[in-house]
């Protein structure tokens, strides 16, 4: 594991928390649109993935805190894994296979085994037919299988039906004369849930702080200057805004839901990375050794999971460096049919992706510096979870298995805040306090508050891949 990036030159702390210390300010985030993304980048940089996605792919409004959708559970074609060895079965003889919890459902009481199903052994293509099944013992269902050929044993290449042998379901073939109906296979759906969560921040200053001239200059917009806002308070408001933007990004990318007692009643939201950790694939590699062989392993995994041809890869500083110039030269992007919205070439250039074309996949790679604690906070942890870390996300769509509605693989979801103040892009900004242009009480403070309610819908998480060094 490489050491972190030295940060001793960065002064700490950069800010302190006080109970008190106004405007602008939300206007640009509230009206962020693709055509103005360039201006956003000039002001805020081009690191933020969820803000880029929201601008170019749009957001979806939800009416309730919780939102859900349905996906197919597993693949359409079935296979099971044998868990008890059958030693040297004779040619043509019936054998008993056993499957375990990995192939059972509903506390181990149900499985896809059905009488009449033809099975094919994955390692040597030998076929057999299920004669009887026994689901009496939870998570240890058995079936008797007879090979189709009298000259073949229902066994793998070693002569045994080994533990771990994959048996592929081939349907009701050789159904016979005057055949009857085989039991149907009930395809399973799975409901996924997530919530929008409340993310807020605020700035507060007293009348004297607002009115004080400071010796340094900070560009204050004309209308604010006319309201008596000076450089110090303006700078504080601006920094609060940027911090709010960063916290929204961090929560949607790295944050997770809240379940513990002793906290407030908020349920939080499951962010992108916890979702992929739970339901996606994870590929490990040796640090500083992300090579072509590993890329081929990754594209094989993408093939298995039906990944879309256009995928984005967000890599931390270290992982991005592992993509040596050699890899980019060896797999140039070349001609490619770009999509629309976040899949367009313009959006890709706006965000700063660099593309490679490998194994029929367009991989758009971007250094995502918010992964590195050194970059965001100026501190160097000995162990940083997101060092040598990257994630691959397919820029595709999937269908809800219940409604057939089409969803993008990642969608930023938001709930419209209550009316009041200014609202745009699901962000509400309001001012209050005796010292504000909207005097609400007798205390001479200017309070500026901002809130948004956001979450992510991540569909077909099995297509997402975390690439992580140990």
């Amino acid at each position, binding site marked *: 594991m490489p050491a972190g990036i030295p940060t001793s030159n960065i002064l700490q702390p950069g800010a302190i928390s006080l109970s008190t210390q106004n405007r602008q300010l939300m206007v640009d985030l509230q009206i962020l649109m693709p055509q103005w993304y360039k201006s956003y980048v000039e002001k805020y940089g081009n690191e933020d993935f969820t803000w880029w996605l929201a601008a170019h792919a749009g957001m979806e409004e939800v009416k309730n805190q919780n939102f859900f959708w349905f996906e197919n559970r597993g693949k359409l074609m079935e296979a099971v894994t044998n868990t008890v060895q059958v030693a040297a079965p004779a040619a043509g003889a019936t054998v008993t296979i056993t499957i375990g919890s990995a192939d059972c459902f*509903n506390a181990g009481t149900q499985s896809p085994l059905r009488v009449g199903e033809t099975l094919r052994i994955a390692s040597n293509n030998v076929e057999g037919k299920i004669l009887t099944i026994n689901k009496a013992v939870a998570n240890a269902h058995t079936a008797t299988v007879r090979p189709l050929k009298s000259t073949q044993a229902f066994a793998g290449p070693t002569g045994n039906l080994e533990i*771990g042998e994959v048996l592929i379901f081939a349907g009701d073939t050789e159904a016979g004369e005057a055949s009857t109906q085989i*039991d*149907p296979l009930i395809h399973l759906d799975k409901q996924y849930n997530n919530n929008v969560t409340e993310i807020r921040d605020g700035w507060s200053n007293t009348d004297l702080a607002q009115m004080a001239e400071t010796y340094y200059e900070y560009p204050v917009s004309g209308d604010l200057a006319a309201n008596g806002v000076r450089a110090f308070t303006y700078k504080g408001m601006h920094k609060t805004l940027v911090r709010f933007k960063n916290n929204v990004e961090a929560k949607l990318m790295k944050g997770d839901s809240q379940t513990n007692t002793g906290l407030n009643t908020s349920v939080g939201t499951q962010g992108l990375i916890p979702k*992929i950790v*739970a339901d996606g694939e994870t590929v*490990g590699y*040796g640090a500083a050794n992300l090579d072509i062989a590993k890329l081929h392993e990754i594209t094989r995994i993408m093939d298995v999971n039906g990944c879309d041809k256009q995928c984005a890869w967000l890599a931390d500083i270290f992982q991005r460096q592992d993509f040596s110039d050699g890899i980019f030269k060896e797999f140039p992007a070349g001609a490619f049919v770009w999509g629309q919205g976040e899949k367009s070439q313009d959006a890709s250039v706006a965000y700063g992706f660099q593309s490679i074309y490998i194994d029929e996949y367009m991989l758009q790679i971007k250094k995502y510096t918010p992964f590195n604690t050194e970059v965001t906070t100026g501190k160097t942890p000995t162990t940083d*979870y997101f060092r040598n870390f990257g994630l691959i996300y397919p820029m595709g769509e999937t269908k809800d298995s219940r409604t057939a509605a089409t969803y993008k693989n990642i969608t930023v979801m938001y709930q419209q805040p209550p009316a009041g103040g200014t609202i745009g892009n699901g962000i509400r900004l309001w001012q209050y306090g005796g010292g504000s242009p909207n005097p609400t009480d007798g205390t001479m403070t200017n309070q500026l508050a901002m809130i948004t309610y956001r979450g992510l819908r991540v569909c077909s998480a099995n297509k997402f891949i975390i690439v992580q060094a140990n």
Partner: protein
Amino acid sequence: MSNSAGITDVHTSQAADVLDAPIDNSTMLKMAQAEPSKVEATHAVFKLVETHRNGRVHLPTEDYVVNPGTKEYEKMRLLKGVQSIWEKDQKNLTPHDIKTHAMSLTFEKNVLRIPLYEKQTLEFLRTTSMNIGSKTPNKSAKFRFYEYNSEIAAQEALKQEELELEAIIAAKDMPVAKMRKHVAYLNITFADDITGMPKTDEAVRRDYIRAAKRNPKVFMDTKEDPAVDISFMVKKVISESKIDLGKQPNSIFWANGPFICKVTPGQTPVDSLVELALTNSKEGREFKERLQHDAR
């Protein structure tokens, strides 16, 4: 046997799976540090420590560990067909060889099975710092696993079942007076949920047995704990207004004036008073003496 999809099948298709309870950390560690199981004759089984992953995990096949032979910090690398796992011993290999012989170890549904004849793979898995039972485990490793031992798993599961049985029997046979004190300590209510009336002894015992079943370890650890009696007395004198909790924030007084103690941050007033009574200090002994007097 029906061969048509029915309404229950529709409901089942939309239902969530019922999963087995995860193995607790102490059992995991026992398995990790035990000798490999002899029950599985053909395969060794490894399981991920984090069991909440539904997708596959592809383990990196390189690591830096202390070589048990040389006691030096060395790189090990798993390559197919290469006898040694130590990079320094992997001689005469071209970059192409290394690229094409790199191995992949994949946990499917948190489980990895390796045939016993794959000695190099097993040596790698048992030596790597990602194995929590290895000689030099890395606690901050991104990928952590242990070698599953079915005998230990069965023994620990049996212990858990026996503990639950013991707790239920203890709950069933506990004398009423002692039961009520323990019920109060376990924060089980004495009033019926629906009517609000005080529960009978039978109703209290029913809930007491349920608590024993739900968490037998806590039940058995606390049933003879002196804190149970103290807690009961504290709650009694508070309910009889002999102790004043509201006179000053975070401070507890006797109703007739004298200061008792401050509430420790993160604790309830009852917990702070119980803690005081159990301490062997002068204030603790005095408080306990007066408590025993006032709770009569």
